[in-house]
């Protein structure tokens, strides 16, 4: 939902409530006012008739459907004006209507008369109609004004906000430029912008530090690890016992493992930092064939049956080095976790790559293998980062990876588009 639409919806709602309450109050006030005015008018009429009776006009002649002059005992006290709603017969409309009856008594020298005067009351339906029509027209006018407001609002008032939005959208780490905004007359926008500016500066600084850290970490660990490896290689050439050889081998392999973890983590960090931009598409087919060729011996050694269905031209937008890492990890995974004498099936086309293998079936959701340091069993030859790298590569280039079990086969497929 757009901000402006939300504002408009709220505005309309509040206006409607306002108009409803206003309409009700106006209706009440109008009704009271009309009754009051009508009462005064009737009072005046009655006084006029009383004058005429006092002047000697016989009351009987004055009587008609709206006027009733009645003689009442002289000793009764004079009645003040009283107003009453009644239903009376209305001749022109030929039906009973709600009428207002005003009555008052007066005395001539020897007689006491009560004059009742009827008048049609403006019906409440009529008032309601008037009020509703008025309110609806006000509401419609409001809507028209609102329409203008929205157009102007979106163009003028929210313009700095939209500019800010598009600037944030354009922000990336490669350009290494903090967000910069123009000054606007509205203080809220300026506050927002200066906050965003500061935040982008901090982000860039953190990003640089992270990058340096992962680079330094890999360097700082690799140097001592290289020393350990060198010393062990020297030790191998000393006069050693079988026991010592086993220990050397164990140290050696652990050291190799550290190395591999550091290399993999630094690869992950580089991918996360988006250091491998892919400005153009490359053909994955020859890369895949090269990777398969390099692993052929591993496949033979495990007595695996490899079937491929590789389209000659499969163009995908990816950095060539990363493409190799991706395919290497995928195929290595299919070999390493396969059972001796098992099968591997590889399919590649423009849209996807699909790799099936006959590894041992897990008793949990295989998607978990995409997470870091997650593997089926604690194997010493696996550090559990291969598929995490695959996943990170997919994330970097917008591919969609899935890991499913189909017909008792491990199936990893990656959609490129």
């Amino acid at each position: 939902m757009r901000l402006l639409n939300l504002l408009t919806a709220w505005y309309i709602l509040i206006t409607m409530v306002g108009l409803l309450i206003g309409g009700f109050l106006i209706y009440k006030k109008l009704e009271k006012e009309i009754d009051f005015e009508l009462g005064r008018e009737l009072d005046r009429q009655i006084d006029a008739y009383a004058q005429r009776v006092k002047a000697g006009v016989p009351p009987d002649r004055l009587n008609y459907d709206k006027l009733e002059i009645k003689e009442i005992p002289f000793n009764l006290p004079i009645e003040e004006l009283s107003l009453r709603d009644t239903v009376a017969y209305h001749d022109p409309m030929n039906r009973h209507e709600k009428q207002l009856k005003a009555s008052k008594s007066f005395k001539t020298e020897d007689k006491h008369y009560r004059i009742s005067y009827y008048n049609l009351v403006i019906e409440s339906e009529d008032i309601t109609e008037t009020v509703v029509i008025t309110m609806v027209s006000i509401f419609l006018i409001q809507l028209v004004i609102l329409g203008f407001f929205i157009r102007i609002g979106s163009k003028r008032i929210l313009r700095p906000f939209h500019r800010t939005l598009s600037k944030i959208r354009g922000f990336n780490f490669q350009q290494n430029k903090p967000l910069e905004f123009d000054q606007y007359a509205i203080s809220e926008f300026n506050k927002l912008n200066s906050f965003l500016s500061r935040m982008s500066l901090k982000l860039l600084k953190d990003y640089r530090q992270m990058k340096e850290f992962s680079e330094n970490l890999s360097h700082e660990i690799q140097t001592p690890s290289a020393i350990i490896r060198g010393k062990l290689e020297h030790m191998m050439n000393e006069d050693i016992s079988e026991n010592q050889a086993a220990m050397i081998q164990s140290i050696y392999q652990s050291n190799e493992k550290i190395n591999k973890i550091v290399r993999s983590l630094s690869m992950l960090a580089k991918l996360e930092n988006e250091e491998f931009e892919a400005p153009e598409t490359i053909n994955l087919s020859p890369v895949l064939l090269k990777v398969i060729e390099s692993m052929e011996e591993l496949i033979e050694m495990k007595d695996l049956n490899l079937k491929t269905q590789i389209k000659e031209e499969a163009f995908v937008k990816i950095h060539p080095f990363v493409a190799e890492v991706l395919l290497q990890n995928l195929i290595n995974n299919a070999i390493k976790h396969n059972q001796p004498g098992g099968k591997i099936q590889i399919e590649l086309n423009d849209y996807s790559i699909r790799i099936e293998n006959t590894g041992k079936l897990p008793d949990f959701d295989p998607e978990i293998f995409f997470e870091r340091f997650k593997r089926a069993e604690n194997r010493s030859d696996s550090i559990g980062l291969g598929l995490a790298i695959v996943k990170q590569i997919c994330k970097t280039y917008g591919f969609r990876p899935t890991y499913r079990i189909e017909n008792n086969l491990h199936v990893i497929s990656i959609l490129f588009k």
Partner: protein
Amino acid sequence: MKVLIIEDNEDLTLNMVNYLEQENIRCETAKNLFEAQDKLLAFQYDCILLDLMLPDGNGLDILSFVKSNQITANVLIVSAKNALDDRLRGLDLGADDYLPKPFHLSELLARLRAIYRRSKLDGSDQIIFNEINLDTKLLEAKVNQSVLDLTKKEYDLLLFFLTNKNRVIGKEAIAQHLWGDYTDDLANFDFVYQHVKNLRKKIEKADGKDYINTVYGIGYKFDGNAT
């Protein structure tokens, strides 16, 4: 052969010097850019082992220094900064090879020899050891004058053994030499065993001696004194 090792870590330098000097390679060392430039101007080297991260600057500067001073030494970059663009930039600037840290000392020696052969001997070299004769130009191995029918990997393996003879070479080192970056499978070194076995068989078939010894579970040794 005389090399200059430009590396700021003393332990690492010591490792390299120990290994290379046993192969009759004369080593001199420099701990930083300044010292390195000093030595390069004063002495002649066949090869420079260059670390990129030095306390007083980037090792890549040495490459332009070598070029502008017409120093004929080859450069082998040895760096832990495993950044892809460092590798490409280094080779662009005229380095002869790039060996990422951590490396196997046997691999370092093999690369050094290979660079030396390429540039100084124009690629052709005869490596003769008793009845074995390797021609690096033809990529051919002979035992008792009869040509062995070796695969590319078996040939590489034999050359690697001869380069590092009388030394224990770890299985990992062999794997990395033959398969490069593809040896991520840490426990599975059966294929190394397979290649060594085949090579042995082929040498024996040509009436060569069995020089290759298994050293416990660690690796192999091409024993020049085998009887």
